[in-house]
């Protein structure tokens, strides 16, 4: 890990000093323990604030289009897939990007830690172990125990495109994607599923953190902010929460790269991924398409074939 960060810093210093890029987008230590925060380095002197570890959970592709000029981006597998989708949708110019690829063994999901030890006061990561000192107790975790759910089934830990790779690559089995979580929900009865999503949606406070964390939610005006037509009222209402989440998920259908940024950003612990994963599965099953696995290609809903499945049609 230390070698990786030294190499990242060295490369960032070199790129900035040579004037090849205006800014390096990476991670720095956050103000809370176990939290990294995105950081924008504009001068070679600033590169020492860059870090790389299991807390680097944000999807930096979210900042690519918003940051003017030529930029180098520290990129995990999922970040690179999001960049690929953004390129497919003409939101980015490839020549403005310098992709520093780093293979990622997963990021930490704090939710379980917070539930057990309360607010985290201090944390140390070493040799795949995470020791946490919390308000309500101390505990040591293995990294595998607190790895984010999406990272546990990750099939693309290595960037799908990059200009430079730092560190080793990670071998993963390239089987067909597994959707055990979606299938488990599908096997429940409709009323059980309805109850599950009712419970999830009653937690949502519509803070839109999920939308803001998402690298692919880049609409100039989101439908939730639109005044004419006014799709949603300002009030907090379970039905409207579901309207928002379902609308967002349908906008992301065939584009979502399952980086899990929305779910990690959610302060209320809403299972947003359950909806996104359902769409990812459907798109894979029906159209044999995975979002952002290459620079070329189109999002699934921008394409069609004349024999797409039609099971959705009304029974006559």
């Amino acid at each position: 890990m230390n070698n990786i960060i030294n190499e990242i810093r060295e490369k960032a210093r070199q790129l900035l000093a040579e004037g090849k890029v205006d800014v390096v987008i990476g991670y720095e230590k956050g103000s809370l323990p176990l939290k990294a925060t995105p950081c924008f380095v504009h001068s070679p002197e600033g590169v020492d604030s860059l870090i790389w570890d299991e807390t680097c959970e944000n999807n930096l592709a979210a900042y690519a289009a918003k940051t003017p000029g030529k930029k180098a981006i520290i990129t995990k597998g999922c970040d690179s897939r999001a960049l690929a989708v953004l390129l497919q949708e003409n939101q980015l110019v490839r020549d403005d990007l310098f992709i520093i690829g780093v293979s990622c063994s997963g990021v930490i999901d704090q939710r379980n830690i917070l539930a057990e030890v309360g607010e985290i006061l201090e944390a140390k990561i070493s040799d795949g172990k995470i020791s946490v000192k919390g308000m309500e107790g101390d505990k040591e975790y293995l990294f595998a125990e607190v790895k984010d759910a999406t990272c546990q089934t990750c099939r693309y830990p290595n960037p799908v495109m990059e200009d430079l790779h730092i560190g080793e690559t990670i071998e993963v089995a390239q089987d067909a994607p597994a959707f055990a979580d979606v299938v488990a929900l599908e096997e429940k009865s409709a009323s059980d599923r309805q109850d599950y999503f009712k419970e999830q949606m009653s937690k949502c406070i519509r803070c839109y953190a999920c939308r803001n964390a998402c690298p692919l939610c880049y609409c100039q005006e989101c439908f939730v902010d639109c005044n004419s037509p006014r799709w949603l009222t300002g009030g907090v209402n379970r039905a409207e929460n579901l309207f928002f989440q379902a609308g967002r998920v349908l906008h992301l259908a065939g584009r979502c790269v399952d980086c899990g940024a929305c779910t990690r950003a959610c302060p209320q612990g809403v299972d947003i991924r359950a909806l996104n994963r359902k769409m990812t599965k459907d798109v894979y099953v029906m159209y044999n398409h995975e979002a952002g696995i290459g620079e070329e290609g189109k999002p699934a809903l921008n394409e069609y074939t004349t024999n797409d499945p039609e099971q959705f049609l009304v029974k006559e």
Partner: protein
Amino acid sequence: MIMGEIQVDAENKKYEPKIAAFLCNWCSYAGADLAGVGRVQYPATIRTIRVPCSGRINPLYVLKAMANGADGVLVSGCHPGDCHYISGNYVARRKFALIKSLLSHVGLEEDRVNFSWVSAAEGIRFAEVVKGVTERVSALGPNNGIFKVDDGGAADE
């Protein structure tokens, strides 16, 4: 607001669902027109909203109709291959399949939201589709579902 009308016919006390029907200008709307010109009888449950193409259907239209209290939704366009704009309904088809799948995944009743293809020549078939959809939505009863916003949702302009 069209969905806000009284739902029960006071004399017959019979429940009449309100169904928002999004019909494409070139095929299904003309099919509905043909049914009318040909005096083909079908239940007066649909509230027709004409759209230029089934490709114009935004998933939010379907959700918003449910939020505003429609008991059912019918979306209909040209048969695949017959689109006035060549590929509008092919693109829409993928979207429809995902809308339908997501809505049943979150537990919405299967028959609330319906999609079909009806051509401009199929006036009788249009009547049959509306009859079928009306029957199934009637069997489900009023929309008290997961998308219905109790205060009727945002006021329309």
